């Protein structure tokens, strides 16, 4: 009970600094310190935002973006954790996959667009692939690192009990490396969302990223920022959700 109210307090207080920044922004705009066309005042952005809702334009693109995110992120997590654990526990797999992973990682996905367009077309499959190709790496690396840094005693204990490989992974390794895996998934959350937007800009037919690009092209910066606010709210919401889930899964993390 007290833990929940504590969480609530934390959430409320958490709004102080963003609100402070917004106030500073608004004042700077009102005083004419910034070009109002390229960086509109928050009050005007909020007005655009309200228009978006009342015109009913908000929900279609928002849902599309969320859907793409869920698909891409889930796939990235599954693949990242699976490969990360596999590479950390099996030397041959590590040797086999490590060069491929490390060669693919530094290549920006935008550079691979010609190849993706060539083989996968200009649609949903390409978009999901772009998201997965980017989001999988932080998860993979953190998982790998997490498993590798495990106390060898844990693994020895498992062996003493003659636990099978699979059971060892599921009941010993995964729970023990969960904090690191979750850290990687947290990074991938933000990264994944950015890439969803990028993918929509490159090959989408609608969605938040698509709208942002369109509005940018016609210099409707105010409306563009309204969509960015929506995006930030989405990102914030996803992060909070992640935080709740994390707290449930790893409640034993040291408290300061």
């Amino acid at each position, binding site marked *: 009970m007290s833990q929940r109210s504590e969480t609530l307090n934390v959430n409320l207080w958490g709004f102080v600094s963003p609100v402070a920044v917004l106030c500073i922004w608004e004042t700077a705009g009102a005083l004419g310190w910034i*070009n109002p*066309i*390229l960086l509109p005042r928050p009050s005007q952005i909020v007005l655009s935002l309200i228009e978006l809702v009342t015109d009913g334009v908000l929900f279609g693109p928002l849902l599309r973006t969320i859907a793409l995110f869920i698909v891409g992120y889930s796939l990235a997590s599954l693949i990242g954790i699976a490969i990360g654990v596999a590479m950390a526990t099996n030397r041959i797999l590590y040797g086999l996959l490590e060069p491929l992973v490390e060669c693919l990682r530094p290549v920006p996905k935008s550079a691979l*667009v*010609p190849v993706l*367009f*060539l083989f996968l*077309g*200009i*649609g949903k499959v390409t978009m999901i692939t772009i998201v997965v190709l980017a989001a999988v790496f932080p998860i993979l690396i953190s998982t790998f690192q997490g498993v590798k840094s495990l106390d060898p005693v844990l693994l020895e204990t498992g062996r003493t009990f003659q636990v099978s490989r699979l059971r060892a992974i599921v009941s010993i390794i995964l729970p023990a490396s969960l904090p690191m895996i979750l850290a990687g998934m947290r990074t991938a959350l933000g990264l994944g969302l950015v890439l969803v937007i990028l993918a929509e800009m*490159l*090959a989408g*037919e609608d969605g938040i990223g698509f709208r942002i*690009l*369109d509005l*940018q*092209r*016609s*210099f*409707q*910066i105010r409306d563009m920022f309204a969509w960015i606010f929506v995006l930030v709210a989405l990102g914030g919401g996803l992060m909070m959700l992640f935080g709740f889930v994390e707290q449930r899964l790893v409640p034993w993390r040291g408290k300061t």
Partner: protein
Amino acid sequence: MRRILLSMGGLLVALLAFSHAVAPAAELQKVRVSIIPINDVAPLFVAIHNGYFKDVGIEIDTTPTTGGATGIPGLVGGSFDISYGNVVSALLASQQGLNVRVIAQVTKRYDRKTDTTPIIVRADSGIKSGKDLEGKSLAVNTRNNVIWLYARAWVKATGGDPEKVTFKEVPFPQMEDALLQKRIDAAFLVAPFSIVALKKPELTTVAYPYSDLQMGVNVGQWITTTKVMADKPEVIKKFVAGWRKGVEWYNENRTNPVLYSIITGYSKTDASVLKTVALEKAPLKCDLPQIKTTMDLMIENKLLTKPLDLSKIIDPLAL
């Protein structure tokens, strides 16, 4: 005595004249220009190469960019003095209150024979008009720009409803593949991509929207801001003068190998590709009536909410 005085006077005059001639050249004033490395801006590089700008005391610092994302924002933000932009973007920026000014024309359609911006389809697709494209997809490099606008106008002019056509954004280099792979049904290309694509027997041209709809259309321009014009009016005038000289040389020398090497220098396109197309004539002036037609088209396609006062946007320098 008189002879000595005369010769001394003559010497003095000669010295004065001489000192004027060898007076240290004033520091060249730098002008930052944002360009897209395409054929259209060749006259600028011709002018730089031939020294037209140096002669009037300015030095052009070109910054290439491949997209529209940096041109006008960089201009408004003060990173550039002048930027290459298309007419639609300039009007859109004006609508939003960004004080841009057009100072010179860069691209203009003169002749269908030199038009290298066709809409291309697969030869076996049977698409011949905008009506045939309903329910299908047309690729443009960017939505809401001049290419998108004229693609829509063409669809409408040939009996189709632009709202029923899906406009996909595809980068120029990927359009040919997308067509061949049946990912898109039609594509609006520019040189040199159109030239390369049309070499394939599977692809064919269905229209030249600019030439078919509005011969003489003003497509690309040099844009600056009211602030730059207020701060550096002389520099802008000199730029336009130097540019026009470049245009004149360019028009006279369109098959000159020197020109090809200049273009290769900034665009990295191989001269062999450049030789296969007849370079289009470059314009010296803006055509207000043409721009007005484009503006009306923008209003019709819901890019502009109401007509803009073109006299406030197109500077007299450009006319």
